[in-house]
């Protein structure tokens, strides 16, 4: 793994990237209150992959994350990371987690560089005293996400995109081969989204395995190699082109999405049977169609109405 262009100081025990993999076999997770959040889920992911975990709220996306990080004990089935049981993989710092912005207390008295340094804690002795190598890796991580000039800022003083990048820097400093991102594009402007995606592509090129939970459908085909569609059960899993189809998405999202159909006589006056469908969830696009100033189109199925 050549993350650092400059020579690293002695004592940097970079985890070799090859072999980052996730394997879920018939995973079932039942919570204490008897609710089965994930049932019989199976999928395999290989190194050098960006995979989107797509589903509605409450579909078990976060439960899958929890199972991968070992927070919940499977009622049946198993999770293996890089061929290892979860607990073993965690103790080797294989998994790095980038939290949702809502899960963080932005008033917490820590600076940008302190957060990045937390990524190194798992590599330190039990007193968590940073070595020269740890500081070097934090510097590198901040540089890579373009946050070096903000390193002395308290995290609450950052913009939405910068906040995301701080936690990306932490996962880089942690040197996890598997990186989990929880809704990374919520509350982030397009520019930052592009920057994050570029960084994820670089990480993919160095053999990392990146799993992203998202309901931001539009960006998925742009940069995700694979997609897992989930609604308590795995509805479909595989290469984006095969899985991320209109039929599958409608199955995964049911009546939750808004849908705009443009086709036939609405769109043109010849016999072309093709149509345009716009699927969207909470960010509701306004769709215009027509010459010059078109008429706004209403969604076919507003979310409050179940589709027939």
């Amino acid at each position, binding site marked *: 793994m050549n993350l650092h262009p400059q020579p690293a100081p002695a004592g940097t025990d970079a985890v070799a990237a090859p072999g980052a993999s996730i394997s879920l076999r018939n995973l079932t997770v039942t919570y204490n209150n008897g609710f089965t959040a994930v049932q019989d889920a199976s999928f395999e992911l290989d190194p050098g992959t960006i995979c989107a975990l797509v589903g509605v709220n409450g579909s078990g996306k976060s439960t899958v994350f929890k199972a991968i990080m070992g927070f919940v004990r499977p009622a049946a089935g198993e999770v293996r990371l890089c061929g290892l049981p979860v607990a073993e993989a965690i103790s080797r710092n294989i998994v790095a*987690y980038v939290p949702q912005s809502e899960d963080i207390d932005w008033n917490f008295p820590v600076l940008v560089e302190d957060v990045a340094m*937390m990524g190194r804690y798992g590599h330190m002795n039990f007193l968590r005293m940073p070595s020269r190598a740890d500081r070097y890796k934090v510097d590198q991580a901040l540089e890579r996400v373009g946050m070096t000039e903000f390193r002395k800022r308290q995290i609450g003083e950052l913009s939405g995109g910068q906040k995301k990048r701080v936690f990306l820097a932490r996962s880089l400093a942690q040197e996890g081969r598997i990186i989990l991102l929880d809704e990374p594009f919520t509350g982030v402007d397009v520019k930052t989204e592009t920057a994050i995606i570029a960084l994820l592509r670089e990480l993919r090129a160095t053999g990392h395995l990146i799993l992203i939970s998202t309901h931001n459908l539009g960006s998925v085909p742009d940069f995700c190699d694979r997609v897992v569609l989930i609604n308590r059960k795995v509805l479909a899993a595989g290469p984006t082109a095969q899985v991320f189809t209109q039929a599958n998405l409608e199955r995964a999202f049911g009546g939750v999405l808004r849908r705009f159909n443009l086709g036939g006589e609405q769109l043109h006056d010849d016999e072309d049977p093709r149509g345009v469908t716009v699927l969207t969830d909470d960010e509701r696009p306004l769709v215009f169609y027509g010459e010059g100033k078109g008429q706004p189109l209403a969604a076919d199925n507003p979310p409050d109405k179940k589709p027939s």
Partner: protein
Amino acid sequence: MIAELAVPFEYGYMLKAMWVSALVGGVCAFLSAYLMLKGWSLMGDALAHSIVPGVAGAYILGVPFAAGAFFAGLLAAGGMAFVKARSRLREDAVIGLVFTALFALGLVMASIWPTSVSVQTIVLGNILAISDEDVVQVAIIAAVTLGVLSLKWKDLMVTFFDENHARSMGLNVDWLKILFFTLLSACTVAALQTVGACLVIAMVVTPGATAYLLTDRFGRLIVLSVAFGAGTSFAGAYISYFLDGATGGVIVTLQTLLFIAAYLFAPRHGVLAARRRRIEALGART
């Protein structure tokens, strides 16, 4: 004049009171750095009131007060869990209900069976009359807590900041939380001796809150907080010599004065700094 100011240092009981107060104040301040960040401040208050019957009972039975306090603390935690699980009451109502119930029980116990320790001592503390055995108990609690916190402060910080990350690097988050609350309970017991049940809450909130206004780094926050806690407690015990008692009141008053100073004059997060920034922003626009 100067000879007069040095008088408290000539009495063994005053020296003892000042050093024990400083120790307890410092340790409570260490914990306050964490407590106030998680919105758990009032938990310290609930805990302090709940252990009163335990302390009273311990004195009646002649067992170490720490044992009684620990038992009452368990009873409080169990009682809250029990009521919450079997009713649809909200958590704050349950906490309020259970801790005042136990506090009242403590007062009743101490009035029915008058002991060497009065109700007033438990509620208001009496560090000036602390017995040598109690000093030993307080010192052990404080030393152990300080030791554990010095070793584990970073792990606790990560746990409180981002639990999922803490887990993903292999920390035992549940164990760390239990450790924290055990230390908190123990220190609440110790602080009971110094400032009494009513004012314990100040010891585990105010120094941390003051330091929070002065720094954006957690390490510095802890250092400042401990310095405030220990300093005000030492000074409070000293001043109380001249005021004849009310040590707890003096300590908490000093802590509050420090807080007000920070609230107004803190270089970045103070009221005046914010006002200055606003005026500058307005000036830049015109």
